[in-house]
């Protein structure tokens, strides 16, 4: 205030109350207000506005996520029928029974390509679950409904009808039983097969094992949705094409404990990402977590299309999980993303995050 004798305007009073005046101006303001009853009342009124506005703004914070309807609602069919009433799974179960002997042969061959494809497909489809769950009215953070994605169902059905019993048997075995996968791939297999997929011996109850395993393998992938189903189909096809020459696996596991100290990991390559069934006890366990991948480029990459098809303005891929505590990244081919940012946080402590960047 250059002229302390002048009455300050409302803006100057707010500037003063916000502590944004210079020391000299603040002193002048203080002196003036002390001697001017009119300004004292203006200051009192301004204090009231500051406090009230703050309170009103703060009351906006109780905002649940996903309350705003999506532009294009994702249509999903959540099958509630028992597995034996679902033709695809029933067919796959039948194949499983028929190929019982092939399972043993398949396990012994060490050829894991087909099973890897299935797991990769589940990972590809994974990120759509939150959006789909939100659009289906599920609360944010709730686990995705345990239903096999259309892409996986189709894959199983196609394989059941076209592939040899041996191949289908290996698919089933790979999903249902802990096959002797190479060490680096084991974490991925764990990620794709959450706890419920730990099945009883196949011989005891073969059909439910397959159903359960198939659902388990895709529980993270549930809700690919209308656009996602198409993308899932494409992903399945592209996986089919590249299955013969699967690239070397590169995996990075981010343990929950590292959330507390955010860190950045540089990665070369493109990755699918999936929650691991390995949870940790303690404070992380019950907290809903959200994992987001955002690609910085507008690359037309199949891996991102699942999300883009549902929401073409968004490159975000995300899902929420209340159980997963670690995440596995796996390099997959055919994705042209130049970089991505992965943040892992939870609703209560969103600043705990892990950023991962990677480029192809």
């Amino acid at each position, binding site marked *: 205030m250059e002229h302390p004798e002048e009455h300050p*305007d409302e803006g100057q009073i707010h500037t003063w109350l916000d502590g944004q005046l210079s020391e000299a101006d603040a002193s002048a303001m203080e002196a003036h207000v002390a001697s001017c009853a009119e300004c004292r009342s203006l200051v009192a009124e301004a204090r009231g506005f500051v406090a009230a*506005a703050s309170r009103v703004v703060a009351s906006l914070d109780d905002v649940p996520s996903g309350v705003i*309807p999506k532009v294009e609602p994702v249509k999903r069919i959540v099958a509630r029928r028992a597995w034996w009433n679902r033709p695809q799974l029933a067919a796959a179960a039948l194949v499983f029974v028929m190929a019982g002997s092939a399972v043993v042969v398949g396990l012994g061959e060490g050829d894991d390509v087909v099973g890897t494809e299935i797991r990769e497909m589940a990972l590809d489809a994974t990120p759509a679950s939150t959006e789909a769950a939100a659009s289906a009215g599920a609360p944010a953070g709730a686990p995705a409904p345990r239903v096999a994605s259309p892409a996986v169902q189709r894959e199983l059905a196609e394989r059941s009808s076209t592939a040899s019993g041996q191949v289908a048997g290996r698919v089933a075995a790979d999903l249902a039983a802990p096959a002797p996968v190479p060490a680096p791939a084991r974490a991925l297999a764990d990620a794709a097969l959450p706890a419920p997929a730990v099945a009883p011996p196949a011989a005891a109850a073969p059909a439910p094992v397959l159903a359960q395993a198939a659902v388990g393998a895709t529980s993270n992938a549930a809700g690919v949705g209308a656009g996602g189903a198409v993308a899932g189909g494409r992903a399945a096809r592209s996986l089919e094409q590249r299955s013969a020459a699967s690239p070397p696996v590169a995996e990075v596991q981010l343990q929950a404990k590292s959330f507390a100290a955010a860190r950045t990991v540089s990665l070369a390559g493109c990755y699918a990402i999936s929650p691991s069934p390995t949870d940790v006890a303690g404070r992380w366990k019950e907290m809903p977590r959200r994992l987001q991948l955002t690609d910085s480029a507008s690359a037309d990459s199949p891996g991102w299309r699942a999300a883009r098809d549902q929401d073409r*303005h968004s490159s*975000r891929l995300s899902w929420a999980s209340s159980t997963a505590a670690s995440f596995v990244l796996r390099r997959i081919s055919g994705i042209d993303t130049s970089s991505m940012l992965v*943040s892992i946080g939870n609703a209560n402590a969103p*600043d705990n995050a892990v950023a991962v*960047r990677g480029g192809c």
Partner: protein
Amino acid sequence: MNDEALERLFKLYHTPLVRYLTRRLGDRDWAEEVAQETFLRALRQESITSERSWLFAVATNLVRDEARKDQRRRGRLQLLASEERAREELRVDDPGNGTEEYEEYDAKRALEMAMARKAVDALAERDRLALLMREEGLDYHEIADALGLSFGSVGTTLARARRRLTESYEKLQAGDTRAEGTSGAS
């Protein structure tokens, strides 16, 4: 920007940025999406001089440029309309016929939030953004940088925003109280 710088930026500003955006947009998912995009843009910068104002400015521009804005707004209006309907139903169908306390509390809170949202949305864009940024602790220089204002006009903008927001909210509250009175009398 290198990884360490990004990490530091993320730790420092992610929470306030998401809160600012959530308040601005009324949707946490959308807010987080915009925040992610903002940090990605930061990642592409060699260096940022005034980090907080840069982040808030970029986030604000992203929201402004968002093609879905109008559609989202329509969605929000639908939400407000449904809340309004729920409120009407509460008044008409359930005037003390055994509604649990917590349900009343929830309804009250939802109503307050809807009124706050209406009041905030009724502000002029610049006033709203300045106020929301200030509530996140940005100083006047940062707000001026982010919104392209002069330092001197920030105080005036905030004073206007606070006064209008308060008056608007009080009006909504008064209307609601009158409606409750009418409903109770009938």
